[in-house]
C-alpha cells in the first residue's frame, strides 16, 4: 500500500481539531503558531505569549503593525477583546505554575517516556539559544509536540532516549507527526492515528522506540 505523509500545514490542521474550547494555549515558534489558523470557529481559545500577552489575536493587516505588540516569535500580533498585558515574570509564573493548559511545541527529538529535545543539537559551532523552551516544557499543564516523523535524512526523531540535549524530562503528552498521532502513556508510546495507507510495521520502522497500536486507532481525518 502507498501512503502520503501530511504536509506541514496539515499537521497544524490536525492538532487544531484537538485544542479544547476555552483553553489557555501557548504556541511555539514556527509550525505551532500556524495551529491558530485552523482551530474550529466555534471554539474560543486564549493564546498566551511569554513576553506578556494573554488573548493574542491574528496578525494585523499590512501597515497596521505595532512594534510594541509582538509575540514570542517577534512577529506582529493583535489583541482580542479580553486580552491582558503583564510583565515577563508574571508571564512565566503562569507557565511554571501550570496555569497554561497547553503548550504546542516543535521538537528535534522525543523520547519514549516523554523526554523532549528541542533547543540544541549539541553542535558547538553555533551559540546555543534556549528562550522559553525549557520553561514551557517543564511548566505547561499539557505539552503536545508537532514535528516531522523523521529527519530530512530519514532518521527517526522518536527514540527510546533522546541523543540531543534535553529540554525537559517526561513532559510530552502527545506527538503529532506527518505520519501519526501518538500518545505518551505510562505503558509507552501508543499510536492513536496513522495517515491513510500507512501500516503499523512501516510506522514502527521509521520510529526509534517501541510503539503499540491502540485498539481503537483510526486514520488521521483528511
Amino acid at each position: 500500500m502507498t501512503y502520503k505523509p501530511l504536509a506541514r500545514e496539515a499537521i497544524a490542521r490536525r492538532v487544531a481539531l484537538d485544542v479544547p474550547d476555552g483553553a489557555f494555549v501557548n504556541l511555539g515558534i514556527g509550525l505551532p503558531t500556524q495551529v491558530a489558523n485552523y482551530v474550529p470557529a466555534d471554539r474560543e481559545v486564549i493564546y498566551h505569549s511569554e513576553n506578556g500577552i494573554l488573548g493574542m489575536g491574528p496578525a494585523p493587516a499590512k501597515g497596521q503593525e505595532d512594534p510594541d505588540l509582538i509575540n514570542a516569535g517577534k512577529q506582529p500580533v493583535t489583541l482580542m477583546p479580553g486580552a491582558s498585558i503583564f510583565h515577563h515574570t508574571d508571564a512565566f509564573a503562569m507557565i511554571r505554575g501550570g496555569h497554561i493548559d497547553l503548550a504546542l511545541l516543535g521538537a528535534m527529538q522525543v523520547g519514549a517516556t516523554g523526554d523532549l529535545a528541542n533547543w540544541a543539537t549539541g553542535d558547538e559551532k553555533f551559540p546555543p539559544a534556549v528562550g522559553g523552551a525549557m520553561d514551557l516544557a517543564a511548566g505547561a499543564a499539557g505539552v503536545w509536540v508537532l514535528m516531522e516523523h523523521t529527519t530530512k535524512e530519514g532518521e527517526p526523531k522518536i527514540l527510546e532516549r533522546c541523543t540531543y540535549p534535553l529540554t525537559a524530562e517526561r513532559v510530552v503528552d502527545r506527538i503529532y507527526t506527518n505520519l501519526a498521532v501518538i500518545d505518551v502513556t505510562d505503558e509507552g508510546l501508543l499510536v492513536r492515528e496513522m495517515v491513510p495507507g500507512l501500516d503499523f510495521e512501516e510506522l514502527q520502522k521509521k520510529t526509534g522506540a517501541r510503539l503499540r497500536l491502540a485498539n481503537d486507532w483510526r486514520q488521521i481525518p483528511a
Partner: protein
Amino acid sequence: MLNKIVPSLAAAVADIQDGSTILVGGFGNAGIPVELIDALIDQGAKDLTVVTNNAGSGRTDVAKLLATGRVRKIVCSYPRSAGSVVFEELFAAGKIELELVPQGTLSERMRAAGAGIGGFFTPTAAGTRLAEGKETRRIEGREYVLEKPLKGDVALIKAETADRWGNLTFRLAARNFAPTMAMAAALTVVQARKLVDLGGIDPEQVVTPGVFVDRVVEVSNPAPAGQA
C-alpha cells in the same frame, strides 16, 4: 466559549470539599469576600484550613466562619486584632490550630505556589522562633530560611470588575492578597462588584489575568466586613 461567570453564590462554592485549604482575601476589613464566605458557611464544608491575614473581627465573615467550628486550622500573620473575639475564644479553648507566618512570607509562599517555585530562601524570621525546625542557609554572609509553597484548594476573592474570561481589577487597597491568592489555588472563586463585557477592561489595566480565575459571581452591593 470561555465563560467563568456563574449564576449564584451557591453555584460558585457548590463543590468545596471537607478538608479543603481555603485562601481568603482581605487585609483588615478591606477586600474580604463577605458574601462568598457566607455562601461557604451555607454550603457546609468542614474540617477546613483557612489561610488569611487576620483571624476575623466582629461576628461576621471570617469570624462567623470560625464560629461554625468547621475550621480546624488557621494560617495567618496577625490573628490578634481589635475585635478578634471569636478566634481568641476558640484559641483559648484549644479548638483551633494556629500556624503563624510573617506577613511577607505568607504572601511569598502563596506566590511560590502559584508560580511553580518549589521553595525559596528568605531572610525574614532568620534567627527567630518562627524559623525553628526550618532549614536555614548562609548566603553571602546572611542567614536565610527555606520556606515552602503554600497552595490552596480554593481561593475566595473580592474584586471590583470582572469579565467572562475572569480578568479582574480591584479597588484601592482592597487589592492586597487577592492577586496572589488567585494564582495559588486550584479553584479560584471571585465575587465582583461589576461584570463587564470582554474588552471592558483595558488590557494594560487588568490586574489579575483570567488564567488565574475559575469562577466569577456578581455581588453588586457587597456588605462591609468586620461587623459586630
